[in-house]
């Protein structure tokens, strides 16, 4: 596949990079990335992946755009309020870059649909807002041998890690199982500074892009934490030995996907 003149111009700042080049840009155009959650994390990730020319971007979310989303979910506009988030996200991505094919999945992930959802994708971005979904994505990706970026944000803090099959710990190695319902704040009441999604979601897009290009060091074996009030990033080394992990260890005890119960305050609105 040869580049059109328009593509040479659109991707010129990529192509000039020795780590990308024409070859890398073609890899991006041929890549498939799935973003689960079109919200605080998923919105900036989707914008940068679309702009970068990731050829196929899947986006999964069951919600509609709410006015309270717009403080951070920068892929949606005021005119999109009431529209399915995946539709609003698709329109913005297509407007940014016609090279991108956007596939929309208007659903909440669960144990019955996630395996089928992730199977055609090269890399998965967890942009969800609750522990049941985060554990489900981890387990499904481990079982299917898919690399993914995990992230979480709350208040003025955010963190992320990357799982690549066979290369170190998974999310469950670090956080054995979801905390009891409502024990750890995850709900809309806790609040989050809007730009936090921009910082962490963009880092997730960066991990996906580096994975596709096969360049640089990924956040495998590390948890990167960001404290905006202290203006401090920390790259925390995670234990290497994951042989005892319930899902990615040598003798896994979790061999079926689990639908954990959502905290009560998240049942009505997941935005």
């Amino acid at each position, binding site marked *: 596949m040869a580049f059109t003149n328009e593509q040479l111009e659109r991707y010129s700042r990529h192509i000039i990079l020795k780590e990308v080049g024409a070859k890398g840009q073609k890899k991006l155009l041929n890549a498939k990335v799935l973003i689960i*959650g079109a919200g605080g994390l998923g919105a900036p990730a989707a914008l940068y992946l679309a702009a970068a020319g990731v050829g196929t971007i899947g986006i999964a979310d069951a919600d509609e755009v709410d006015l309270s989303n717009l403080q951070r979910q920068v892929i949606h506009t005021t005119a999109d309020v009431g529209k399915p988030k995946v539709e609003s996200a698709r329109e913005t991505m297509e407007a940014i870059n016609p090279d991108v094919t956007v596939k929309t999945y208007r659903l909440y992930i669960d144990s019955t649909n996630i395996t089928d959802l992730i199977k055609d994708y090269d890399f998965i971005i*967890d*942009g969800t807002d609750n522990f049941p979904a985060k554990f489900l994505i981890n387990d499904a990706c481990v079982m299917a041998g898919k690399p993914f970026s995990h992230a*979480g*944000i*709350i208040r003025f803090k955010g*963190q992320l890690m990357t799982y690549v099959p066979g290369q170190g710990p998974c999310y469950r190695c670090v956080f054995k199982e979801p*905390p009891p319902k409502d024990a750890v704040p995850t709900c809309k009441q806790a609040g989050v500074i809007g730009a936090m999604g921009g910082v962490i979601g963009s880092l997730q897009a960066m991990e996906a892009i580096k994975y596709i290009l096969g360049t640089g060091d990924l956040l495998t074996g590390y*948890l990167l934490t960001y404290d905006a009030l202290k203006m401090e990033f920390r790259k925390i*080394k995670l234990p290497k030995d994951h042989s005892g992990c319930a899902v990615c260890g040598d003798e896994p005890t979790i061999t079926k996907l689990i639908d954990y119960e959502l905290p009560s305050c998240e049942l009505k609105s997941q935005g």
Partner: protein
Amino acid sequence: MKITVAGIAKEYPQGLTVRKLIESENVETPEYVTVTINDDFVESGAFDSTVLNEGDNVEFLYFMGGGR
């Protein structure tokens, strides 16, 4: 004895257990924190029995559930 907690080296009393450190550092949601010492996990059931040593590097890893 000097130990490093979340990247900061400080003096701590001899015989300090992981449990006592969690208390003295005012760790948020202490029931659900993941602890590593020198890049190895400490099982939560061993917080009382695990005594820290000079030069140890301790990290607290927290659940963070938001994202949408």
